[in-house]
């Protein structure tokens, strides 16, 4: 393994929009990654451990857990929508600063609307 330089400490930077979206993109990715084993076990246990599945199913349907799932969806959707922005950057598209700011705010608005719809479908 090569020795790569570490990123500078996050707290020495003045917060700017692009930086906040980059950090939240990573945090959202981590949140969804952590949820993956639980979701996989929930799906798979239906076949190999029906009792565990029933317990987990009731747990996921608790109102407080459903509330957690709203944040889970918000994080996933932020990562997805912002990821599309980064994919465009791969081809050097939409890198003009005004475009970057407009798209970033649109991501937030669209995500808020989609999360509201998700919450409505959830309850």
């Amino acid at each position, binding site marked *: 393994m090569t020795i790569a330089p570490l990123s500078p400490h996050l707290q020495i930077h003045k917060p700017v929009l692009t930086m906040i979206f980059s950090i939240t993109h990573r945090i959202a990715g981590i949140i969804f990654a952590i949820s993956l*084993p639980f*979701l996989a076990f929930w*799906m*798979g246990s*239906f*076949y190999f451990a029906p009792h565990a599945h029933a317990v987990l199913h009731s747990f996921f349907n608790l109102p407080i857990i459903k509330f957690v799932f709203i944040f889970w969806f918000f994080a*996933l959707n932020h990562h997805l929508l912002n*990821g599309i922005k980064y994919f465009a950057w791969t081809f050097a598209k939409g890198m003009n600063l005004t475009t970057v700011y407009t798209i970033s705010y649109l991501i937030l608005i669209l995500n808020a609307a989609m999360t509201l719809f998700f919450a409505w479908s959830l309850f």
Partner: protein
Amino acid sequence: MRGSTKWLWQRISAVALVPLSYWFVITFLNLLHASQNQKIDLFSSPLSKFLMVIFFLIAIFHARLGLKTIYEDYFTTSQVKIFSLITDIVLFLTLIAVIPVLFI
């Protein structure tokens, strides 16, 4: 794997995950509200089984690349090795856990 190869695969898997993730969220909502019999119906189609396993396979691959990139950015080489090992074990178990879906 070279850094540029990882970078390329991160993007290829991301493109596949955009439609797959939204399909997964819809299936997740259906499953959450489904009864025992409705769940069997949901998984009885070969397409659902296939998409579910493919989603987890690509999501695990994408998460593995992404998490390791984050470790490499913020942690020392020895810490990266430990965290990567833990990640690999957990993601391997995740894959094992979802395989039974194919037999529903």
